[in-house]
């Protein structure tokens, strides 16, 4: 019997959608690169350091792969094999999360490399070592953005995993995850501006944490989020852990 971790990698490797969706994300980055060829120097730095939207596209891919990795085991009944092989269900759960984390890491590396490749092919005039935000070079800004996105992605992983453990349908988890990815920040900003009296509590809502990267790029965003960047980092960590632990409890109680 092969180890569970190896099995998870094998499943990810053989599942075509794992790689096709990543190729589509890279394709969308190329498209963004092509449509922004004529922008000014500052904007071209912005597009490069945000990986031509690649990190946002990858979050959508990650939401879909993460949701289906949990729900498909119950849908296909293969959870029985996994539970027999592992002595406890929580082990199955965290091995799955570990496999998703590895995929998340590889995905971010691919997006980073694709952004550099697009720059080399479409923006030969852009100097990777020219200065941009925080007194750092453009390439360092891209790395920082990638690292922050990787950190923030755990909030999505936690949220989607929790929904996938509640619902037996991956479509529900994917829809809610994508909905949060697109509308979460707006919803939080709306709540904070509509109910100023409860800002001290409401500013800790999980959707507000989605402004993390935005605030990193534009520090003046603090007037909307009412949180320091470091506070948002703590919020992301706490909410991610909470969602993952709740997900684990539900995963352990689900009927096989």
């Amino acid at each position, binding site marked *: 019997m092969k180890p569970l971790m190896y099995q998870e990698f094998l499943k990810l490797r053989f599942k075509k959608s794992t790689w096709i969706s990543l190729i589509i994300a890279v394709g969308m980055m190329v498209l963004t690169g092509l449509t922004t060829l004529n922008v000014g120097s500052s904007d071209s730095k912005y597009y490069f350091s945000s990986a031509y939207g690649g990190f946002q596209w990858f979050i959508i891919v990650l939401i879909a792969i993460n949701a289906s990795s949990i729900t498909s085991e119950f849908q296909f009944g293969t959870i029985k094999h996994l539970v*027999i092989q592992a002595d406890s269900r929580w082990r199955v759960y965290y091995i799955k999360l570990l496999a998703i984390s590895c995929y998340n890491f590889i995905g971010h590396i691919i997006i980073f490399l694709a952004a550099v490749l697009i720059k080399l092919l479409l923006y030969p005039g852009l100097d990777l070592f020219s200065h941009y935000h925080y007194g750092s070079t453009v390439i360092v800004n891209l790395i920082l953005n990638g690292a922050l996105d990787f950190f923030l992605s755990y909030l999505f992983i936690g949220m989607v995993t929790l929904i996938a453990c509640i619902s037996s349908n991956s479509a529900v988890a994917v829809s809610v995850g994508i909905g949060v990815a697109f509308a979460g920040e707006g919803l939080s900003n709306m709540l904070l501006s509509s109910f100023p009296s409860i800002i001290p509590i409401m500013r800790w809502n999980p959707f507000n944490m989605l402004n993390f990267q935005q605030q990193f790029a534009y520090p003046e965003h603090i007037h909307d989020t009412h949180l320091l960047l470091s506070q948002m980092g703590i919020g992301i960590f706490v909410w991610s852990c909470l969602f993952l632990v709740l997900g684990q409890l539900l995963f352990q109680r689900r009927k*096989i």
Partner: protein
Amino acid sequence: MEKIAELQNVSLRKHGGKILDDISFDLNAGGIWGIVGPNGSGKTTIMKVMLGLLKYDKGTVKIDNQLVTSKKHSVVRDQVGALIENPSLYPYLTGLQHLSLYSSDKKKISTIVQQLKMTNYIKLKTKLYSLGMKQKLGIAIALVNCPKLVILDEPMNGLDPKSARELRMLIQQKNREGTTFLISSHVLSELQKIITGIIIVNDGKISIETTPSELKKKVNKQVIINTNDNDKALKTLNVLFPDDGLKSLIIDSDKSEKLNEYLQAIINNDIQILSVNDSQDDLENTMLELMQHKSDKEGSNL
């Protein structure tokens, strides 16, 4: 005799109702055990409990002398192969990829593929498989690591007669090599051809644990006489044996000693006997009859 599995007073409650009620039985190593009972009687639940998939409230479950619980069942991983409910397969993987997922020994994989005659489609994705092909792959996964105990839940589902026969032969071959089987099936005629022991489950309780031949002895044996004129034969018997109160040509076991007299009387009246059959020549009838007797008995005790 060595015991491969032992269940002692296992009970399981859910939503206030008893799913398993004080279940106890042993499986001797080297046997082919059939587990039968009506839908919802608890067959699959027993199998899931034995695999550590379900938490039970009371009792002990041991496989190969090691305790099995939902939190501790390494013995199941190492010594048991199973097919529970439907074959659990990933549609985006081929049959071969499934077998590689669960076994690292390529030699064992090719052996089981050949034994189950799956060579033609083993490299196709399972989303293209028919029900029978999926069933065979599920059985192959259960057998591929040559476990000591194999638990098969309805393995004949979806198999054509030829495949069912091949599966029976494979089970018997593996059994001769030392594998113990616990098989549930609704196709009891298929089951009775191979089993050496039987466990009857009804309403979450073990009704009987015995051998098929012993089981037959426990129920009323009936003999069915078929003639070229059954009405005339019955009238003749009622005239000659008025005290026996025969209502049909199905003769109960308590009158079986008079069978020769009945047949002689029919022949003497120029009626041709077409056949004389044992009414319970299959396990299905025996089991159903036995369960009927049991529920009648329980009903009269109320």
